[in-house]
C-alpha cells in the first residue's frame, strides 16, 4: 500500500492543481468544522443541564411543612404544621424498603467566629445520612457520626469555602469555631459538586442543634433518598404516598398544597433525561446530516475532477496505466484530501470550542467540547467517506475506454 512513488505522483497532482484541491478540501473541512461546532455546543448545553442538577443526589426527596390553606375536619385554614421527632420515626418505619438514606434537619443562620475572622453561615443539624443526600464529598477528616448524634457532641463539618473564609490557606481541622457563642470543633471539611452555595454550609449533629437551640422535639424538614432500585415512576408513586400519609397524620386536606410539600427530584430528573435524549437525537441528526452533505459535496467534486481529467487519464492509459492503478491513484488522492481537510476542519472546530470556553455560559453553553471518541470516530468516517467518494468516479474513470478518453476535450 505504501508506495513512495505513487505518493509522489499524488502530491504532484495535488500541488499542481491547487485550486481544485482547495475547493474540494474546503467543502469537507467546512462540513467537519460545522459538525464539530454543533457537537461541541450541544455538549455545552448538556453540561449546563448536568451542572444544574448535579447539586444534590438524583434520587433525593425533601419534605417541608407550612401553613394549611384549606379548612379540614373542623380545623381552620392558616394552621401551622410543625414536624416533630415522631414524624421522623413514623416516616422511617412506614417505608423501610423505599427509603435509602434519611435525615431530619434543623436549619439556622449563625455567626461563625474564628480568631479575628467572622461571617454568617447556614448551620444545619443533621444525621450522618445527610451527606449522600447532598452529594457532599469529604476532603479532610470525616462527616458527622452516630456517636456524635448520641453524645450530642459539639463537632461540625464545614464546607470548603467556610474553611477558606475563616482560615485562609490554613487547615481548619481540629480547630474550634465559635457559633453564636458556643464553641464547636471542626472534624471535617467537604466540597460539593453543587457549587459555591453548597460549600458554605456547616453541618452539626442533629441532636446537638435540637437540644441547644430548640429545646423541644421540633424538626424543620426531612431529607431522604429513595432506593435507587425504584424506577422513576415508582419513585413518584412513593413520594405521592408519602405526601398522602403525612397529610392524613397531620389532618391536612388531601388537596391542600401548602401545608405539606414533598419535593421529589425524580420528577425533574425525568424531564431532564427526556430533554437530554431529545437534544442528543437532534444533535446527532444534524451532525450526521452535515457529514452526509459534506460527503455528497466531495463526491460531486470528485466526479467533476475525474471528468475534467478524462483526457489525462486516457493518456495515462495509453502509456500503460492499468485500471487498478487509475482507481488507486484517484482513491488515494480522494482519501488524502478528505482526511487532511477533514482533520483540519476538526482541529479548527476543537480550537474554536476551546477558545469559546465558558464565554457563552449565559446562553446555557458550558465548556463546549467534543469527546475523543467523537474525534476518532469522525476521522474514521471521513476516511471511509473519502474512499466511497473517490471509488465511484474512479471506477467509472477506469472503465472508460482509452480511445474515448483520448478524444475527450
Amino acid at each position, binding site marked *: 500500500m505504501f508506495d*513512495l*512513488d505513487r505518493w*509522489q*505522483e499524488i502530491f*504532484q*497532482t495535488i500541488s*499542481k*492543481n491547487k485550486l481544485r484541491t482547495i475547493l474540494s478540501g474546503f467543502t469537507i473541512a467546512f462540513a467537519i468544522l460545522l459538525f464539530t461546532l454543533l457537537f461541541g455546543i450541544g455538549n455545552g448545553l448538556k453540561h449546563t443541564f448536568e451542572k444544574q442538577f448535579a447539586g444534590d443526589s438524583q434520587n433525593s426527596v425533601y419534605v417541608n411543612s407550612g401553613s394549611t390553606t384549606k379548612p379540614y375536619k373542623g380545623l381552620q385554614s392558616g394552621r401551622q404544621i410543625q414536624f416533630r421527632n415522631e414524624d421522623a420515626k413514623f416516616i422511617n418505619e412506614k417505608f423501610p424498603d423505599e427509603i435509602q438514606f434519611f435525615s431530619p434537619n434543623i436549619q439556622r443562620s449563625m455567626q461563625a467566629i474564628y480568631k479575628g475572622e467572622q461571617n454568617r453561615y447556614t448551620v444545619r443539624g443533621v444525621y450522618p445520612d445527610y451527606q449522600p443526600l447532598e452529594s457532599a464529598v469529604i476532603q479532610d477528616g470525616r462527616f458527622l457520626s452516630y456517636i456524635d448524634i448520641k453524645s450530642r457532641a459539639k463537632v461540625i463539618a464545614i464546607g470548603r469555602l467556610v474553611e477558606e473564609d475563616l482560615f485562609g490557606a490554613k487547615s481548619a481541622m481540629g480547630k474550634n469555631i465559635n457559633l453564636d457563642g458556643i464553641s464547636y470543633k471542626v472534624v471535617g471539611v467537604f466540597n460539593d459538586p453543587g457549587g459555591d452555595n453548597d460549600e458554605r454550609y456547616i453541618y452539626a449533629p442533629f441532636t446537638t442543634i435540637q437540644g441547644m437551640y430548640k429545646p423541644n422535639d421540633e424538626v424543620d424538614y426531612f431529607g431522604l433518598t429513595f432506593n435507587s432500585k425504584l424506577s422513576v415512576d415508582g419513585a413518584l408513586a412513593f413520594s405521592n404516598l408519602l405526601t398522602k400519609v403525612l397529610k392524613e397524620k397531620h389532618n391536612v386536606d388531601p388537596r391542600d398544597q401548602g401545608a405539606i410539600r414533598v419535593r421529589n427530584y425524580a420528577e425533574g430528573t425525568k424531564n431532564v433525561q427526556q430533554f437530554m435524549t431529545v437534544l442528543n437525537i437532534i444533535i446527532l441528526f444534524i451532525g450526521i446530516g452535515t457529514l452526509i452533505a459534506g460527503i455528497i459535496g466531495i463526491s460531486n467534486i470528485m466526479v467533476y475532477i475525474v471528468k475534467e481529467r478524462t*483526457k*489525462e487519464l*486516457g*493518456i*495515462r*492509459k*495509453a*502509456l*500503460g*496505466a*492499468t*485500471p*487498478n*492503478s487509475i482507481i488507486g491513484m484517484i482513491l488515494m488522492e480522494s482519501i488524502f484530501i478528505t482526511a487532511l481537510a477533514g482533520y483540519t476542519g476538526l482541529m479548527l472546530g476543537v480550537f474554536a470550542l476551546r477558545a469559546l470556553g465558558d464565554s457563552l455560559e449565559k446562553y446555557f453553553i458550558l465548556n463546549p467540547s467534543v469527546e475523543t471518541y467523537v474525534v476518532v470516530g469522525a476521522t474514521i468516517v471521513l476516511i471511509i467517506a473519502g474512499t466511497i467518494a473517490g471509488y465511484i468516479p474512479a471506477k467509472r474513470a*477506469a*472503465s472508460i*475506454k*482509452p*480511445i474515448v478518453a*483520448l478524444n475527450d476535450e
Partner: protein
Amino acid sequence: MIKIENLHKSYPIGKDSLHVLKGLDLHIKEGEFVAIMGSSGSGKSTLLNIVGLLDVHDSGNYYLNGQLIENLDERKAAILRNKFLGFVFQSFNLINYKNALENVALPLYYAGMGRKERNEVAMQYLEKVGLADWATHLPSELSGGQKQRVAIARALVTKPKVVLADEPTGALDSSTSHAVMELLKEINREGMTVFVITHEEDIAEETDRIVRLKDGVIISDEKTVKKSKV
C-alpha cells in the same frame, strides 16, 4: 512484428452498425517504416487504435510480436501497451501540469521503474530529441514541434517494439513537420518499427512503404520510390 489477418471492425450507430474495417490483411516486419494513407473515414484511425490495443477488433486475427491478441482485458492491454508500443498523437497529448522530463518519464513509472533511474533515462531521450535544455519546461511553454519531439521521446522511452504515430504532423507547419519526420526516420534507422498514419502525400513519401486504405479495405501496398536527395 505486426500481423493482421482478415480483420473486421464495426461500430454500432443507433440500430445499424457501421462496418469500418472489412477484412484487412497486413504484415509489417520488424524495422519497417510504414505509412497508412487514406482519407477521413477510410478506417485508418480505427486500424491504428486496434493495432495500438486502444480498441478491440470484432473478428480476424491480430498478432503483436508473435503473440495472438484476444480476450484482452484492460489490465493486460495496459501492460502490453506499456511494454511493446509507443504512441505519438496528432494533438501531442502531453499532461499539461507535468514538465517535459516528467512527461517523458511517465511510461517508465507505469513500467515500475524507480524515480531516479527513470528521470535519468528520460533525460537521455530528451537529449536524443534535442530538448535537454527544455526538460523543466511545461508543455505550455513549448512550441508545437517541441511538444511533438517530447511526445516522441515519451514514445521511445520504454524501448517499445513499435512506434505508432497518428497524424504526427497534423498540427505542425511544413518545416516542423519535416523535422519531426526526420526524427522518426532516424529512429527507424536505429531499427525501430514505425507505423505512421497520415493523409498527407508528402509525409507518406518519406516512409519506406505506403499502405492505402479506402472504405475499410486496402487498395494498394507498395514500397516508396526513394528520391535521391538534392
